[in-house]
């Protein structure tokens, strides 16, 4: 019998990989070999998973509800696009610059946004996105404005793999980036840093009282998240070869929040479940008339809030708990 507190055991147990956590990666490989015509769509899904993962750090772990995260996705997208148009076409370094640039923007704006709470914070997040949109629109000689940024080309990846029209290179590239970010995020949230974020989400005053630098932790989480969102944006540009103003839009910020919530907030895998569900549903339902997709988004949100607080993964948890309790009672009987 160990003397260690059960909480510590639980924490250490969470660091171990379970078989289920391999499922997304098996699926990604499966799609590559068995559904080659879906690779461009698959790539979009992977990019959005990265974006949703970044939002989960802020919303799910730091407990900061924001409707302006597209600002950082868009910043990354535009940085990557502008670097390419300026004549530097090496994809990996461009992607890193997109991430670093978005992180810098995150640190800068986070320092203001995180001072506010509630509606004020929501408002400021939206303001950042709109300011960037107005700038991109104003300097249309640079960004292409409403028409979008065209002529974005990249050299072959690692000097060998061309960004082909079947999306094979982009798909594998995005998948590898997702893998790296997933490893990073997993280490991060199971480290004391991630635990302190969860503490701040639950009770900021108490965390302050036990000596956690609440403000700095939140800002750091926001910055890291903005950087990851920027990477997602950069990937989107590199695989599409085009940047449109919509990457900065409120609609995108809202959509990514809905995807995350659908999967489940504050559990990294919410992004892996919610994004594909949302995007596949959108792809099938909104084919006829995209407008009524709004109704379904609204319905999803109401259902999740009223009946399934933890999203799809929350339902899964309940089912697992229920069936294991059933199994336990049977064992006794």
């Amino acid at each position, binding site marked *: 019998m160990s003397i260690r507190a059960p909480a510590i055991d639980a924490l250490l147990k969470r660091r171990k990989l379970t078989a289920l956590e391999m499922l997304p990666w098996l699926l990604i490989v499966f799609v590559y070999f068995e559904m080659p015509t879906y690779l461009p769509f698959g790539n979009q899904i992977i990019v959005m998973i990265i974006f949703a993962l970044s939002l989960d750090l802020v919303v799910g772990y730091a407990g900061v509800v924001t409707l302006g995260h597209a600002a950082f996705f868009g910043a990354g997208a535009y940085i990557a696009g502008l670097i390419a148009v300026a004549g530097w076409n090496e994809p990996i370094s461009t992607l890193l610059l997109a991430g670093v640039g978005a992180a810098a923007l995150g640190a800068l704006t986070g320092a203001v946004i995180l001072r506010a709470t509630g509606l*004020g914070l929501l408002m400021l997040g939206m303001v950042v996105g709109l300011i960037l949109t107005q700038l991109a629109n104003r300097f249309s000689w640079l960004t292409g404005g409403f028409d979008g940024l065209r002529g974005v080309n990249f050299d072959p990846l690692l000097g060998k793999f061309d960004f082909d029209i079947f999306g094979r290179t982009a798909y594998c590239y995005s998948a590898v980036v997702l893998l790296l970010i997933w490893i990073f995020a997993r280490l991060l949230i199971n480290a004391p840093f991630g635990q302190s974020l969860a503490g701040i989400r639950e009770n900021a005053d108490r965390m302050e009282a036990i000596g956690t630098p609440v403000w700095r932790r939140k800002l750091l989480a926001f910055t890291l998240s903005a950087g990851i969102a920027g990477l997602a944006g950069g990937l989107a540009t590199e695989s599409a070869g085009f940047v449109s103003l919509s990457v900065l839009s409120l609609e995108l910020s809202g959509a990514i929040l809905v995807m995350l919530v659908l999967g489940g907030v504050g559990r990294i895998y919410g992004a892996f479940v919610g994004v594909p569900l949302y995007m596949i549903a959108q792809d099938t339902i909104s084919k006829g008339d995209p*407008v009524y997709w709004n109704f379904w988004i609204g319905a999803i949100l109401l259902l999740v809030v009223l009946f399934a607080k933890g999203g799809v993964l929350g339902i899964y948890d309940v089912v697992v708990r229920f069936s294991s309790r059933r199994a336990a009672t049977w064992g006794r009987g």
Partner: protein
Amino acid sequence: MAALETLLSIAFAGLAFGAVLYLVSVGLSITMGLLGIANLAHGAFAAIGGYLAFYFANKAGVPYLLAIACAAILTGAGSFFLERTLYAKVYDAGELEQVLLSIGLVFITTAGLHFAFGPVPTTIQPPSYLLGSIDTGWRTFPTYRVFLIASGFAAFIILWLGIERTDLGAKIRAAVDNRHMAEAIGINTARLFSVVFALGSALAALGGALGTEVISLTPGYGLEHLLYFLIVVSVGGLGSIKGPFFAALLLGVGDAACKILVPEFGSFFILVAVFLLILAMPQGLFGRSQ
């Protein structure tokens, strides 16, 4: 003379826009101050009110002012129902749940309005006595805008008197100041909140219906203009009647100034100003520190 002309048109367009912003947003400020519910669907109520008034006035032939009054009452009643059935479930939940629920309502409203009225931006034709312009001898002012500005000021004065002088107003002030203490002395804050919520939504509907010439009705109204409503509330300060009034007028005039003086930048400068203002005064202009 040209400079004066420009200043006047900025002030006039800005005040009319500000008056509409005030009507729509003030209810949100009070409900936020009362219970701290992040209700992002507030603007959607304005859209519903606007479309209802449009339906009554243009399709059913009801007189303009009566149509708007009916729309406001119906929207208020509808929101009372929604408050009891949906919002009441998320009062004790986190901010995220409130944001998700209310933004979900915005999306459903958008789809519903699109289904019922189509995607084209709509305005309600004002009656003949509001068309034309008022000649002061010095210069002329469009009657409709004068009417809007007057409505905004009238709403402000009525609300201010209502909050300061009536029993209901005293209860609201008490509950905004300290909800638990207000409950302890026997104020039913839950019922109070339902009433305030309905009144706020009715005002929003009024603003949405009156202001269609300034902010035209589209199915996406609730999301498109949400940012401006939130700016009014956060810059003005939560739980106040006075704060949103000055914030709305400032935002209206600032926005008009930006669009007339530097149209190529859109609302860039006003947004930066909001950003800096909240940096300096996180509680807004008239907000109380919690």
